[in-house]
Each structure stands twice: as structure tokens, then as C-alpha cells.
């Protein structure tokens, strides 16, 4: 029996889709059978981040409306045969799907997959309600900025009210240099404010932009974000992994980079 994980944030643009793509790919690399569902109806994004935008035939709304079977709508990943994407519809809106339909879909997919990852749209309206409907646990993504953290708090409250079993926090796009100079909240600061368990800290890394450009998630690759995402995957499956000391690590990566440049 699989587990349904919703990736949510409240505020837009903090990295939900990037997180979904990387965590899903990382779990697949570990041999798990994974399906990613883009629940942002009308604003389809996960397919381009995964590099699968040219393979879409059917979408989430087609499945829910019984225009096709689930299997027909699932797109197999380019690199991992045990990783699938169920893309969102681009021409409909959030009201095309109900929370009950999403719960039913999630329950069906649980029979076949180890992990079902729901990429949630920004906001707290219908799209959010759809995405959390069948969720067993939630990953709340935030950046160390006042607006994102405030919205994350609201989301955590709503997840609790909807009795989502476990809620874990990912602090994304942390700038180690700015934290050091006192001009950015640390992940500890964010955890203290939100009072929720931390499952990962992802540093701001230009490799993320490059990986999105190429449509290839970078989880597991030899950069700081790649390592950070892999560690999140390990924690999801229950492994105990120490948090990376980016301060020390940065020196090492910079050294490696400068050696490679020479």
C-alpha cells in the first residue's frame, strides 16, 4: 500500500514543483515506484520541469471524467522506468475536479505505487483542497522570507484542521552567505517560528535553474541542491541522515569547481 504525499506552500514561486520533481525522481532512483500528479489545473508546470511536455496525450481531468483509463494518462519518465507523471489539464480550471474525485484517484494509485506525490497549486482555495484530499502526509515548502513563512504557517494550520497525518518542512533557497551576515533567517529561525519538524534544507543553487532549463531534475547530482534533495528522499523513506553543513560544504564544492575550471 502506497503513501500519498502533498507538496504545498501557500505562497507561489517558492519551489513546490521543483521539489516535487526532485523528490519524486530521488525516490525513483532509490527503486521506489513513484507517480507525480500535477494538481495545478490550468497552470501546467510539472511536465516541463520533468522534460516530459512533448509526451502528453491525456491529463488529470480526462482521468477524473473517465475519458481514459488511468494507465493511458500516465507518462513514463525518460530516465527511470518506475517513475510516472500524471499531467494537469491546461484548458480547464480548478473546479473541473473535486476533492472526492482526487481522494478516489489517490486511493486507486496507492494499490500500484509506493509513493504518490501531489504537486499542489499556490493558494488555499479549491486547488489546495483537491491536492490535500487524499494525502497521508504533507511537505510544506517555504523560503526564508517573511511572506513565504507567514503563508506556510497558514497552510500548516489548514493541514492540521484537515487532519493530515504528518507535516514536514522544507526550507528552500537558503543563502548561506546571507544567513552568516545576519541578513537572512536561518532554517532554525524558520523552524522556531513555524514549530514543525524539518525534513530538509535546500540551498539556493544556480544548478536548479540549469536543471529546469534542461528538464532534468538534479537530485543526487554532485551539487549542494542535488545532495540536499537526495537527503530529503532518504528521510522520507525513514533513514536517519544528518543535515548538511553548507558552510563547510560550500568551501569543498567551491574548491572542486575551481579545480574543474582550471
Amino acid at each position, binding site marked *: 500500500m502506497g503513501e500519498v504525499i502533498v507538496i504545498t506552500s501557500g505562497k507561489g514561486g517558492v519551489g513546490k514543483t521543483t521539489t516535487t520533481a526532485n523528490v519524486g525522481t530521488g525516490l525513483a532512483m532509490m527503486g521506489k515506484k513513484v507517480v507525480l500528479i500535477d494538481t495545478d489545473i490550468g497552470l501546467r508546470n510539472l511536465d516541463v520541469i520533468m522534460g516530459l511536455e512533448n509526451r502528453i496525450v491525456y491529463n488529470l481531468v480526462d482521468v477524473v471524467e473517465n475519458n481514459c483509463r488511468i494507465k493511458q494518462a500516465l507518462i513514463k519518465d525518460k530516465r527511470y522506468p518506475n517513475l510516472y507523471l500524471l499531467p494537469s489539464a491546461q484548458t480547464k480550471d480548478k473546479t473541473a475536479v473535486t476533492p472526492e474525485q482526487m481522494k478516489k484517484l489517490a486511493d486507486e494509485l496507492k494499490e500500484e505505487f509506493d509513493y504518490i506525490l501531489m504537486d499542489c497549486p499556490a493558494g488555499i482555495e479549491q486547488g489546495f483542497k483537491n491536492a490535500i484530499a487524499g494525502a497521508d502526509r504533507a511537505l510544506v515548502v517555504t523560503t*526564508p*522570507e*517573511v511572506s513565504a*513563512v*507567514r503563508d506556510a*504557517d*497558514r497552510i500548516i*494550520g489548514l493541514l492540521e484542521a484537515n487532519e493530515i497525518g504528518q507535516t514536514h518542512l522544507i526550507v528552500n533557497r537558503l543563502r548561506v552567505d*546571507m*544567513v552568516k*551576515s*545576519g*541578513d*537572512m*533567517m*536561518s532554517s532554525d*529561525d524558520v523552524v*522556531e*517560528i513555524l514549530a514543525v519538524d524539518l525534513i530538509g534544507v535546500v540551498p539556493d543553487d544556480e544548478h536548479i535553474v540549469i536543471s529546469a532549463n534542461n528538464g532534468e531534475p538534479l537530485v543526487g547530482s554532485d551539487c549542494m541542491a542535488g545532495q540536499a534533495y537526495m537527503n530529503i528522499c532518504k528521510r522520507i523513506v525513514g533513514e536517519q541522515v544528518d543535515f548538511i553543513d553548507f558552510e563547510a560544504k560550500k568551501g569543498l564544492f567551491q574548491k572542486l569547481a575551481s579545480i574543474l575550471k582550471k
Partner: protein
Amino acid sequence: MGFFSSFFKSDVKSGENAKNRLKVAITSDRAVCSPEIMEQMKNEIIQVISKYVEIDVEGLDIKVKQMELEDGATPVNAVMANIPIKGSRNFRRSQQH
């Protein structure tokens, strides 16, 4: 005043400032209570206290506020109520019970 406050602000790092501002904002976000519930609570408090002393209902003031704590402590929300009592005669009577 303006000069000193801006001078003081430059001493606080923006990360620390963000954290402090968020704590306050989030605490009041979490404490949001609908006006209907507040009214209901107010009426019940009046009922209970009126059993013992005569109170000035007009002057009654109830709100959810952040409690002042020593430096560094996480802010705590409290229900603050100012309930003026009418005359002292009532008090003496309640003591005799």
C-alpha cells in the same frame, strides 16, 4: 525621535528583524477569532461575573492580545478583559457568602 529610531534600527540585522516581525504577525494570525465568537464569549463572561458582583457592562472590554514578556521569549496570546465593577457594596455582600 526619528533620528534615534532610525539610528537604532540600523543596529538590528534584517534577518533578526524579519524573525521578530514574523513572530508578532503569525501570533496574531493564529489568534484570529470571529466577532461572533468574541461576542458570545463576552456575554458568557458577563453572566458568570454578574453572579458575584454588579459590573458596568458598557465599560466592559475584551480582546485577544499579545502578552508582554521578558526579552527573547516567544510571544503568548492572552484574553485580556477589563471589567469595571459598579460600587463596592456588592463586593462586601459576596464576601459574606
